[in-house]
Every structure is written in structure tokens, then in C-alpha cells.
């Protein structure tokens, strides 16, 4: 186990310097302290200590200082390389871009930037334009997840990139599981948080539920940031024994709305763990957190200034609006909310709505209903194109193993459709219902809503 490190002197550091300062400081105090466990829960895991990480940053900084590129596109596969590139570019005031696999085509927008991969070499082109060290803070470019629409590049300042990081001492030295793609906003938030606070970043070898659970158990992870889809998969497909041994202290859900039953399952599976739901987007960063374990957010938050300064509003059609501060414009989020008692709950993304013969269907409502049917472990509802009705509601269903007593796939299918007929408008009832071994997720760890 890592011993505790004394507080890292981040308060005085400019935002763009903080990652390099934090890593260097921990490396000085305890060089062997593990920073990253890569391939965790798999055959060949490897540990990278803080001293190694700090050395890589120093070396890359020297290269950046001599070449002074206009910007750096981080194209590394290893998380430790991404961390080193971010830290070095930050402290050297070189703009840096993180492009996830599905956003690689956008590199054309970053003309004349150089690419740095796992070799951590800055290519030298004597004819290329140089960008001398400027006092102004440089930007970080991140691609949106493309869950609803093609990925696009978003520019952030280091201040906004680090705005959600928890630096108080209670957050120091924890083990963080990284199930997100390290090049996306959500993933970056996890590795930044872990390495700004002398923590361990635990990167599972894959997103397979058993590999993730084994990583939690083997590496004694304390914090599990995940999408509701990824968390649900741990419960529906993970090994029971491993699940019982996995003890996390915190679960941070983001990327999608969490429903009540999932939050209950999380409480049952990880007793004592604090479950926080984070509402954040790649464009806006973190807007608010809900820590009371209930779905959605309190209704009286609407129209009020929240901690952090954001103000929430709602369009007449239920779309959530966010105004980050008094000086910024109100932004339509694409997320639809609905009042239920004292809460506003998320009903889905505007772009997820399935239109069947002109009538709207919220896939989440159908999914929630299907999940309550005995014999169903997991489900995805999506729109299937139809020449007759525009779209049809289609569902992929993962059966529980074992099935309930006397249950057969056909009886579960009949029960599922009957439950939908009883609880939904006729056009909302799935017309196509397929049994699958597992539900596919997109690279952001969310469930895709259109037929592929």
C-alpha cells in the first residue's frame, strides 16, 4: 500500500502547471509510489511509479522547449504517455489536443500542430512555425463523445479542465478506476483527479465486467467513476464472488442519467459507498453533482444559483438549459427533464427520442419498464428505421442466468411485451425484441440509440 504524502502545493500553481507540479512533488517525496496500474485485472499488468512519470514529463518539457511547436496532438495509446504529454504541454504553455479514436479525422482542424505518440518524441521540422513561450494560458482541445451527433472539437482553458478536481486532503492518495476512454473529457477528469492528488490510477485491461471487478479487488480501488450503463453491467454480468469482494468507497456516475433501481442496486452491492451523480458535458464541464442517491435533481434547483455558480432553466418542451455564470449565455443541453414529485428526472436526450409514425417515444421509459420484468438482466431500446412508420421501437434484451423458475426465453419475451402493452402507448411497445449476450456500448461507455 502507498503511504500518505503530505499536501501537494497546488494552491499557488497556475492551472496549466498543476499536473506537472503535483506529479513532480509526489515523485520527490516518495519516488516509488505507484501512479498508474495499467492492464489491471488482466494477465500482464504493469505499474508506473511517480518518479518514472515525473522523469518522462521533464524530458518532454525539454523537447517542447527547444522545438516550440504551435500545438501538440496527443496520439498515445498508453495512459502514462497521455498524462506526460498533458503535464509537459501545460507547464510549457503549448496547446494540446486529445482526440479519441472516432475523432481522429478532426486532426485536419489542427493544422501545423505536431503529433506526439507513446515514444514521447517531439518531431523537429526546421521550416515549421514556432510558438514562443507566452504568458497567456494555453488551451486544451478535447473532442465531444459523439453520442448524439458527430464528434466535434471543444476548446477548454486549463482552469475549466481542472475546475471539477477535488483537491482537499480527504481526496488524497485514493485508488481511482479508469473505465472511461482516457482521451475523452470524462476519462481525463479521472486521471487528472487521481494524479493531482497523489492517487493511483487503475486502468483495467478491458471493460469486461470481471476484469473491472478484479481490478477493484486486486488494486483496492476506492473510487469508481462510471456511466450507469457500465455500472449496470457489473451487476448484471459480473461474477458474484468478485462483486462481493469489491469494496469501493465512492461511485461517481456520469454521462447518462441513473434510474432509481440502479441507484438502489448500487447501494445494495456496495454498502456504505457514497453514490454521486455528476451532470457534466464535454462542452460545459461539470455543472452540478447530486449526492442524495435519488434520480434526477431537486425541483427547487431550477432557476436558482447552484454551488459553482451555474443556473438551471427549462424550455417549454422540457429541455434542460444551463447558464454557467452571469456573463455566459444560456446553453441548451439536449437533455429532457420531467417533474416527478419533488424532483426533476431525466427522460432522455432529445436526439434519442424515437419517432414512430409521428409519435415520440422516450427509449429510457421503455428500458426502465423492460428492466422490471423478471428474467431480464439488461436492455437497450433504440430506433430502427422503417419505410412505413419512419422508425420502429426495437429492443435488445440480455436474459438473466439462470432464468426465473419455469421461465423460458419465450415466456420472458411474452411477459416483456405484455408489460410494455400495459404500461406504454401502442407506438412505444417494442416491435422488434432480440435476445443478445451483451449490450454493446459506444466508446464513451454509453448505450447507442440508433440501429448500427
Amino acid at each position: 500500500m502507498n503511504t500518505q504524502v503530505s499536501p501537494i502545493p497546488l494552491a499557488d500553481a497556475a492551472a496549466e502547471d498543476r499536473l506537472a507540479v503535483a506529479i513532480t512533488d509526489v515523485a520527490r517525496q516518495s519516488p516509488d509510489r505507484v501512479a498508474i496500474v495499467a492492464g489491471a485485472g488482466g494477465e500482464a499488468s504493469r505499474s508506473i511509479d511517480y518518479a518514472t512519470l515525473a522523469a518522462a514529463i521533464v524530458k518532454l518539457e525539454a523537447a517542447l522547449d527547444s522545438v516550440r511547436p504551435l500545438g501538440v496532438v496527443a496520439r498515445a495509446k498508453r495512459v502514462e504517455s497521455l498524462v506526460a504529454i498533458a503535464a509537459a504541454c501545460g507547464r510549457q504553455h503549448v496547446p494540446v489536443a486529445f482526440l479519441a479514436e472516432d475523432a481522429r479525422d478532426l486532426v485536419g482542424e489542427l493544422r501545423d500542430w505536431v503529433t506526439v505518440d507513446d515514444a514521447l518524441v517531439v518531431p523537429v521540422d526546421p521550416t515549421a512555425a514556432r510558438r514562443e513561450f507566452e504568458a497567456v494560458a494555453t488551451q486544451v482541445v478535447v473532442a465531444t463523445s459523439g453520442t448524439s451527433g458527430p464528434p466535434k472539437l471543444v476548446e477548454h482553458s486549463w482552469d475549466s479542465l481542472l475546475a471539477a478536481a477535488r483537491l482537499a486532503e480527504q481526496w488524497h492518495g485514493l485508488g481511482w478506476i479508469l473505465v472511461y476512454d482516457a482521451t475523452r473529457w470524462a476519462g481525463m477528469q479521472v486521471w487528472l483527479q487521481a494524479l493531482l492528488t497523489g492517487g493511483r490510477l487503475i486502468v483495467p485491461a478491458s471493460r469486461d465486467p470481471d476484469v473491472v471487478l478484479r481490478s477493484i479487488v486486486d488494486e483496492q480501488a476506492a473510487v469508481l467513476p462510471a456511466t450507469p450503463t457500465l455500472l449496470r453491467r457489473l451487476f448484471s454480468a459480473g461474477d458474484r464472488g468478485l462483486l462481493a469482494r469489491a469494496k469501493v468507497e465512492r461511485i461517481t456516475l456520469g454521462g447518462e442519467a441513473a434510474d432509481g433501481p440502479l441507484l438502489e442496486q448500487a447501494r445494495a452491492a456496495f454498502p456504505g459507498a457514497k453514490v454521486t451523480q455528476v451532470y457534466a458535458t464535454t462542452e460545459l464541464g461539470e455543472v452540478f453533482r447530486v449526492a442524495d442517491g435519488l434520480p434526477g435533481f431537486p425541483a427547487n434547483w431550477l432557476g436558482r444559483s447552484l454551488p459553482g455558480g451555474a443556473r438551471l432553466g427549462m424550455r417549454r418542451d422540457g429541455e434542460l438549459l444551463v447558464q454557467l455564470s452571469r456573463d455566459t449565455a444560456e446553453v441548451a443541453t439536449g437533455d429532457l427533464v420531467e417533474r416527478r414529485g419533488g424532483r426533476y428526472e431525466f427522460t432522455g436526450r432529445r436526439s434519442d427520442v424515437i419517432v414512430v409514425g409521428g409519435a415520440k417515444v422516450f427509449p429510457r421509459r421503455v428500458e426502465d419498464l423492460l428492466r422490471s420484468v423478471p428474467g431480464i438482466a439488461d436492455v437497450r431500446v433504440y430506433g430502427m428505421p422503417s419505410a412505413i412508420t419512419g422508425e420502429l421501437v426495437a429492443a435488445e434484451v440480455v436474459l438473466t442466468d439462470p432464468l426465473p423458475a419455469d421461465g423460458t426465453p419465450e415466456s420472458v419475451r411474452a411477459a416483456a411485451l405484455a408489460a410494455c402493452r400495459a404500461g406504454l402507448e401502442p407506438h412505444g411497445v417494442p416491435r422488434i425484441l432480440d435476445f443478445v449476450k451483451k449490450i454493446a456500448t459506444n466508446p464513451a461507455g454509453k448505450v447507442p440509440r440508433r440501429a448500427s
Partner: protein
Amino acid sequence: MKSPSDPLLEAIAVAIRQVLRDTGREARPVEPGMSLAADLGLDSLDLAQTIVLLERVLGSDPFRAAAAGPERVPVRTVADLAAAYRRPAAAGNSPTEI
């Protein structure tokens, strides 16, 4: 074409019976001369489902091409539906030829 052992008609009958069962109705014999709406009680959603089910068995959806054409294909009976699938794709799926 109207022989009961016709594999296309059989596939259509199987698909329609599944649609009826899935929607909580009684699965019944399906004959080529039956009207999809009046005799079998199928609405546009039922027809859309039937066509997806058939695409999975037959590998084609003649209505996807037809919908892009100048006119909608009139499909009133089970036999009309079969006719839409019988036209070879190479002949062009222009709805006016049906």
C-alpha cells in the same frame, strides 16, 4: 403462386402470425387473398414490423427503395405483399411497375 407450400407466402404467414402473437392477438391462418387490414387487422405499425421480420428472413426490404420513388406501392392483400418481394431488385424497384 398461391400454392400453400410457396416458401415466400409461408414466410409472410409466419411473420404475420408472430406480429399477431407479439401484440397479444390470436395467431390465425393467413391466406393470400386476405386483406391485411380488413381480414387480419394489421395497422401500419404491424405492417412495419412484418417487413422488418421478413427482411431478416429474406434479406431484402422492397419498401425501402419504393418509399424513395414517386409513388407509394399499394399493398392491400397478402398477395400484394408477396408481389413486392417477388420483383427482382435488378428490374428496378420503381413502384409504378407494381
